[in-house]
């Protein structure tokens, strides 16, 4: 018995690998999915999400969410931290690519009619994912605390605040006071690194579970 076989047997004895693996490993991926690159878009969005998690964790090790320190810490990441500029720039590009991929993925679902019975609820989960993804972008935009960050957020929260009925509450919850300031920054940080990641992980779990149960739609 080679070492590989020994390891396999050890795991097989405990986790029934020989029952679990074949259905995953042996089955062919259908040709219409394999040959059409439009089916890659969901996976591309997910890959970007994973890259964002990894680069985001590195950024969080140096970033300081206070008005006095935020800008300086980002500047420090860009100039002094080894590979800091690369990590932050990859975070930036992965975020934009993810949003583009999610939008194109949604267009594929729409124009292929893949939201129809039985996939209605997965479309609803999908729209929530779209909302979460763009909110990720909105909350991340403020964090560097430069001129663009500050003023774009001021206008953005102003627009959200003028939505009838709920707008006032939205802007109060987001801004946490009368003007963009320390409260806003810590809130946006909490939203960006705690609330949204938990929300998106939950919804992605649901999304993939539903695709798993219902299979990929499509006529051949």
């Amino acid at each position, binding site marked *: 018995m080679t070492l590989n076989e020994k390891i396999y047997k050890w795991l097989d004895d405990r986790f029934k690998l020989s029952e679990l693996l074949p259905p995953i490993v042996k089955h062919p991926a*259908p040709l219409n999915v394999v040959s059409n690159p439009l089916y890659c878009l969901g996976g591309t969005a997910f890959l970007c999400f994973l*890259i964002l998690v990894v680069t985001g964790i590195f950024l969080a090790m140096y970033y300081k969410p206070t008005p006095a320190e935020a800008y300086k810490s980002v500047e420090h990441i860009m100039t002094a931290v080894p590979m800091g500029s690369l990590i932050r720039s990859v975070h930036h590009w992965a975020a934009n690519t993810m949003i583009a991929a999610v939008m194109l993925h949604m267009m594929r679902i729409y124009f292929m*009619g893949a939201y129809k019975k039985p996939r209605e609820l997965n479309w609803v989960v999908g729209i929530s994912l779209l909302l979460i993804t763009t909110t990720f972008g909105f909350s991340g935009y403020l964090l560097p605390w430069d001129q663009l960050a500050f003023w774009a957020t001021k206008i953005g929260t102003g627009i959200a605040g003028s939505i009838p009925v709920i707008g006032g509450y939205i802007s109060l919850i987001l801004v946490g006071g009368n003007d963009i300031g320390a409260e806003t920054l810590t809130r946006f940080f909490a939203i960006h690194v705690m609330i949204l990641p938990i929300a998106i992980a939950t919804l992605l779990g649901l999304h993939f579970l539903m695709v798993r149960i219902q299979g990929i739609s499509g006529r051949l």
Partner: protein
Amino acid sequence: MALIEVEKHEVEEQKPEPVRVRGLPFFPHFLLREVVVMCLIAGGLIMLASIYPAGLLKPADPFDTPSPIYPEWYFLYVFGFLKFWTWNIGPIPAKMIGVTLPMVLWYGLLILVPFIDRNPSSDIRKRKVAVALGVIALIGILYFTYFSIVHH
């Protein structure tokens, strides 16, 4: 992504296929291709990041409004629509419409798509209305994005 590939064959199992199942074996061919694609995307991102690093302007100054303030590109259409819509409808001020339509109403409509479109066919030739509406919405979003850049 392996997780997702898992169910791709499940379609094959559920539908009794008259023809024999044609496809790419998941292991190793499909997986290899998947890994290659992932490497290409990751490589592309790293290349973009090194050529166009993320920017950082001057520190935030609440007393100095800079002149062009652009939001992220995916919010531009909201700004564009807000600028575009200048008409009050009865007692409803134009600004309220300009904010509500592209955010609340648009997302409300999007969520309801599967419940509005009751046509069971997924053949693109048999869903002309849905496709036409989709194309109109797409052109609208692109137009308002363009509008927000031009009328800054």
